[in-house]
Structure formats: structure tokens, C-alpha cells
């Protein structure tokens, strides 16, 4: 029973407002967005912050929803399971953290995309966004590669990420989005 208290203390000291681990479904997204909206309403957050956090949260969660791989029975992990946490620091800075499994070959593509975005300043991101919006093909899943650019633009911070190799097939992808106040 000690571990429950341990979990609680960890989340409490880590200023975690909300966390979830499991399969991300459409209904879950609707509920989580409603809960976060109510929480921010109760905290009387300025509309500007509320909108930024909400917008970025929508993109992060829909990324998880759209891009989670089907479970590969040949790997030791459950690809359909993901983690997300929303944190508000003592200084009032919001962060959205996500974690999910990613096939090794996609990890490389994702890393390159994140590095490219992180090298850009505000104006370059704006230009890049318009370029992808106007010329990019819509993917079958509807994303079309705009999500991460939009998150970077709106958060006003560099995207912090990490890939933990699990084996030769799959890695664990961690993403930490800090939202500038």
C-alpha cells in the first residue's frame, strides 16, 4: 500500500494537474479537454493562457490519438498505450508531457522533424507553417505534418524530447512542451 502514497507524493510534488496512461480514444480526449477547461476556469487563468494551453493540449492529444501504432505482437511492449501529464509549476508555467512507443524507423523521422523545428525562430516557423499548410498533402490521418509546427509556434519554446531505445524495433518517445507565459 506504500506505493500508492508514493505515487501521490510524486504527483503532488511534481505539480501534476492531470495524468493518464492507457489507450487514447476520442471520448477520452473530449473528457480530458472538458476537465482541463474547467480546471483552468476555476484557477481564473487569463484567457490568453487558457487558450494557448487548450490549443496545444488539443494538438498533443490528437497526435497521440492519430499516430499511435497498432500493437505489434512481435515487440515486448504495448504500442497502443500512451502517457500524458499536464503540469503547472509553482511559477505558474504550464507543461504538457507525453510519452508513447514509436517504431525505430519513425523515431528517426520524428527526431529530424523536431530538430528542424527547434532550429527555427518565430518568423521562420510562421513561414514554414504557411508553406506546409498550403503545399503539404493531408495525410490519411488528417494531420498533414502541421501539428508539431503549430505546437512550437504557440508554445513559444523549444520542444524538449527524448527517445529511449527499447530494442531494435521500438523506442519510447518522450515529449515535453513548456508553454511560455
Amino acid at each position, binding site marked *: 500500500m506504500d506505493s500508492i502514497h508514493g505515487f501521490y507524493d510524486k504527483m503532488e510534488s511534481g505539480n501534476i494537474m492531470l495524468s493518464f496512461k492507457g489507450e487514447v480514444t476520442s471520448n477520452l480526449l473530449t473528457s480530458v479537454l472538458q476537465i482541463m477547461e474547467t480546471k483552468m476556469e476555476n484557477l481564473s487563468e487569463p484567457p490568453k493562457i487558457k*487558450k494557448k494551453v487548450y*490549443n496545444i493540449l488539443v494538438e498533443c492529444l*490528437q497526435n497521440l490519438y492519430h499516430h499511435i501504432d497498432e500493437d505489434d505482437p512481435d515487440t515486448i511492449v504495448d504500442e497502443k498505450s500512451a502517457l500524458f501529464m499536464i503540469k503547472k509549476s509553482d511559477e505558474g508555467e504550464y507543461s504538457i508531457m507525453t510519452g508513447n512507443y514509436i517504431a525505430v524507423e519513425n523515431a528517426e523521422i520524428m527526431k529530424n522533424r523536431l530538430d528542424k523545428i527547434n532550429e527555427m525562430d518565430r518568423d521562420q516557423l510562421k513561414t514554414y*507553417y504557411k508553406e506546409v499548410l498550403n503545399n503539404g498533402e493531408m495525410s490519411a490521418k*488528417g494531420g*498533414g505534418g*502541421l501539428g508539431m509546427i503549430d505546437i512550437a509556434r504557440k508554445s513559444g519554446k523549444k520542444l524538449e524530447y527524448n527517445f529511449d531505445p527499447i530494442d531494435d524495433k521500438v523506442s519510447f518517445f518522450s515529449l515535453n512542451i513548456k508553454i511560455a507565459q
Partner: protein
Amino acid sequence: MEELIIEGSPKTPTIKFNPSTGHLLVSGRSIPENSIEFYKPLIDILESYNENSQSNTKVDIQLEYFNTSSSKCILDVFKKLEAINSGSSEVIINWFYEEDDEDMLEAGEDYQAIINVPFKMIEVEE
């Protein structure tokens, strides 16, 4: 042509298009997981409206939030309006944003830079 009315939901905006007045309204939130499916009826009606349009077409976009999946579909809607504007109808797009919502203003400016239709940015109080 019949009026198109789609009632809003927590994830999708209210859409009203009246082909006999040439007025299009999109208001609320647009954060569906599948936006292509959602915007298809609007794209379709604009396509047929282009063949028999009013002399003026007024578009009011009053979005509170939209996701990047919707942003592609909104661009498709604007491309249809661009075609209508270069045809027999004069189109104006009113882009509403709440004061302090720089992200929404900037999103409107992004479309303005891509689409060859007059835009009007309108700030509203929260």
C-alpha cells in the same frame, strides 16, 4: 439550392450557409479528429454555389479554437471562396478574434497571405 445548417458540438463549429443570401457563418470550435469528413458538406455546397452565386458573398469566421487538422480544411473552404471571388461574386471574409488572442489573429493573417480574397480582421471583446 437549400440552406446548409450544421449545429455545433463541443468539437465542431456551427455552420450556416444560405445560398440565396450568399452568407456563410462558421462559429465555435473546430477540433474534430476527422475534419475532412466534417467539412465535406460545406465544400460541396460552395462548389455548386459557384455555378449560381449571388453578386456578394459575405463570410463570417468566428472561431474560438481550431486544430491543425481543421486548418487544412478551412484552407480548402477559402480556396473555394477564392474561386467564387474570381467568378461572378464579390467575396469578403470577416475573420473575428477575441482581444488579446494573438494566435487567432495571426492564424487569420496566415490565410490572408495565402488566399486572394479581401479579409477583414475584426477584434471582439471577450
